[in-house]
């Protein structure tokens, strides 16, 4: 006798409207990338780079790449809905606004660097 199909197919379980994120992230690969970048940034710090600006930019670029890897993959932001992006938009735009508001203090600084150097010589003899 052939099998009688059940009249009512079993209903899918209730209770989870939110889709469980089953995105396969290779956490170990992300970890290896982070370790490599950490080693790179430390090695670069010991290399004698003349330009202070280049040094800072390089260190911050590496830090930003590392931070993006953590945010996108460890924190799953890559797989999040619009709402999380909307929430993140607020502090990120405020952060940018704050740094822009600080620009007068920073960009005019080179003009005062002579003063700063004088002060440096003063305290250092």
């Amino acid at each position, binding site marked *: 006798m052939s099998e009688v199909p059940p009249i009512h197919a079993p209903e899918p379980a209730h209770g989870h409207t939110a889709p*469980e994120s089953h995105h396969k992230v290779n956490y170990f690969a992300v970890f290896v990338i982070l370790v490599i970048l950490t080693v790179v940034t430390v090695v670069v710090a*010991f290399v004698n780079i003349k330009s202070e600006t280049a*040094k800072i930019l390089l260190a911050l670029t590496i*830090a930003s790449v590392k931070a993006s890897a953590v945010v996108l993959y460890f924190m799953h932001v890559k797989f999040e809905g619009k709402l999380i992006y909307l*929430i993140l938009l607020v502090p990120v735009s405020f952060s940018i606004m704050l740094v822009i508001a600080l620009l007068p203090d920073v960009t005019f600084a080179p003009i005062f660097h002579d003063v700063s*150097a004088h002060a440096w010589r003063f*305290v250092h003899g």
Partner: protein
Amino acid sequence: MSEAIIEHGYVPEEHAPDPVFSHGDPTPPGKVGIWLFLASEIMFFVGILGSYIVIRSGWPHLFEQQGRTLNKLLAGINTLVLIFSSLTMALAVDAAKKGERPKLIKCLVITFLCAVTFMVIKGFEYNDKFHHYTMLVNENGERWLYDGHVHEHEGKKELTGVRVRVRDDMTVNVNFAGKEWIEDEAHKHGDLGTSEKLEEKTYEIKGTIAQQTNYGPWKNLFFSCYFAATGIHGIHVMAGMIPLSILAIQAGRKKIFPQHTEYVGLYWHFVDLVWIFLFPLMYLI
């Protein structure tokens, strides 16, 4: 459902009735909550970063020089410890979702131990800074500037480090002077050949100390920045240890909270994220 309420007194979020989602966004309210908290945390740390930017732009020489007195190796190890703890935390969240209890406990315990390791290494670093002194000493009518680690030896006060005799034409400020300054002056005044390096020696401090300061937050603006930023980050690490231990204990009692684990994971990755920026800013550049 009602049994669960009677038994536990509250309904864990994963068993609670479905909230009404607006606009079809399937993000659970708890996740919105933790992200709002992290949003405020971002602003908090950007405020500290802002003060760092302004102070550094005003005193580039100071930051360049004083940053070298910090221990790059210990901080690098700490970076790896935090990154590793982030990995185990991500694996813990994964295990909690799949209901793999032994793996969850293992990952949470490793994450917790990484947090302890981080704080212990940080403690060694801080302790080192608090025993590191710059002092101006009057000895038999001569003035000497010392920089190094102070310790007691057979009831005598000793300092392991470097020193230079202070001439009348030198302007000394213990808050700015350090090993490099002493080396520069030694070169300038012929105490040391131009290509020679100052050797660290142990000196007994016999004279009267005219001025002294250790490498605490009061040393100068760089160390104010350093202790404020790393101290607040350390408090965040310690705060993270509390929910980590709670989740591990609950998992040991056969209770798994997948969503709470995810939220704690988000916080923990954020703490890692802050350190990823603090490490180059304080130690490397």
